């Protein structure tokens, strides 16, 4: 899933400081799963904004809505009624959401309520970790199913580097697993250590962001 975390309320208050009426728009997709932008979080943020502005003697009217998804234009449409009276929309979807909302309402301010952090999963309750950087040509089959692009701090294709110690990466103060240590252990278990004996060639980054923003076209779905 796309993992995101809430921006500090102070930052959101600063964005909406000139508004009298805003919509907080959540999303029932990934950000609901990672507890940052679902119906519950919409309610919490809306209350925080109201309370803070009331305390400042400058009431803010906050309307709440949680879209089925914010990464499909048709699911933005239900915001139309609320949007017409609002000064701004604060989207707490991943950063795709506010951009879809902005595209639908050309004359309305749209602000992001979250910082989109990474593509990942939950490691334990309340802990999320990065697993993918969407490089566009998956190579993890060569590495025991583990990704050195997203999970090695130096994106080594021929690790582990000299900073791998006790299974941990030198970056992150001992909190990050050295993915190359895990790749090594996994290939050892699989009896495939020979896969690590040859230099791994050059990664083609042209399928990644490096070639510019990407578009995927599925002709069979367009018919």
């Amino acid at each position, binding site marked *: 899933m796309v993992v995101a975390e809430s921006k500090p309320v102070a930052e959101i208050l600063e964005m909406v400081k000139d508004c009298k009426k805003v919509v907080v728009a959540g999303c029932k997709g990934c950000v609901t799963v990672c507890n940052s932008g679902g119906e519950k979080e919409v309610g919490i943020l809306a209350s925080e904004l109201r309370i803070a502005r009331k305390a400042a003697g400058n009431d803010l009217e906050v309307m709440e809505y949680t879209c089925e998804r914010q990464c499909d234009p048709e699911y933005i449409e239900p915001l139309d009624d609320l949007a017409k009276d609002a000064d701004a929309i604060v989207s707490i979807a991943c950063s795709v959401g506010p951009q879809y909302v902005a595209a639908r309402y050309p004359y309305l301010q749209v602000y992001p309520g979250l910082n989109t952090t990474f593509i990942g999963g939950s490691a334990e309750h309340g802990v999320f970790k990065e697993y993918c950087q969407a490089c566009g040509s998956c190579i993890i089959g060569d590495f025991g199913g583990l990704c050195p692009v997203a999970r090695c*701090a*130096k*994106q*080594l*294709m*021929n*690790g*582990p*580097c*000299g*900073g*791998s*110690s*006790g*299974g941990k990466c*030198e*970056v992150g103060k001992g909190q990050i697993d*050295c993915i190359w*240590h895990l790749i*090594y*252990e996994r290939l050892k278990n699989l009896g495939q250590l020979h896969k*690590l*004996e*040859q*230099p*791994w*060639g*050059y*990664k083609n*980054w042209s399928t990644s962001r490096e070639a510019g923003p990407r578009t995927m076209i599925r002709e069979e779905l367009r018919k």
Partner: protein
Amino acid sequence: MTLTAGSNLEKILKSGQKAVTCECGPPRGADAEHFRHKAAFLKDCADAVNVTDNQTAVVRFCSLAACTILMDMGIEPLMQMVTRDMNRIALQSNVLGAAAVGIKNLLCLTGDHNSFGDHPQSKNVHDLDSVQLLDCVRRMRDEGKMISGTEVDGRPAMFIGAAANPFADPFEFRVVRMAKKIQAGAQFIQTQCIYDMDRFSKFMEMANDMGLTEKCFIMAGITPFKSVGMANYMKKFVPGIIVPDEYITRLKGVPKDKVAEEGIKIAVEQIQQCLEMKGVAGIHLMAIEWEERAPEILKAAGLLPRPKV
């Protein structure tokens, strides 16, 4: 003797004599005089002088410029290049430029992570890693081709080196990774600072068993302790370095004004121990901000004067 670059370092190693390289880091500013001053101490001590490339991810004046200053001083440079800050376009451009101005030794590294440096908010590159850079330089030199397949107009004659850290984990893979670097193009290896002699000795045994010392010159990395604080810092905070307690006990056991001498004594012993190990082809002395003491360390270790080839 078949030479690929014809550098002094290559000639000495290929003649079978123990080689010496020293390290000299450019300053954090444009003060070339300071750099010349430090480098002058190394002039007749080293067969080539390593010039670091923004080491520890801290901005310094660039390696290529510093190498040309060394050449003007009559010192043979060994240019270090990290893949952290440049993509394959810039890396290949710098290799070609370095060869064009007469640099003949190149050390290919990935580099310390930028989060440890003075610009932790920077974007890193890592288009290539050190193994890929080795392959890239070897290919330009031997096949006359860039990564893209484009023919180079004038091949870069480089004596190509890499780093190895016998003290990182998993230990049993360290020598395999070094073999990969050799396969990619490394003709010589400079190791991380060695303090744990037993582990280094085991590493060399594995390298000998795999036949790597027949294919590549392994130079043992030595960094003298300047103080007890430095030894403690390296033990506790520098990832991938193992400092046995016995050295810290020795440094603590002498009067304060004798600690530096004891550090030098330890370095000399370590050099001698390394040179006795089968397969060690030379010493890479990294006297960090202590270049002025390099001559006496090398002299005491019996490595001066340097041979002429």
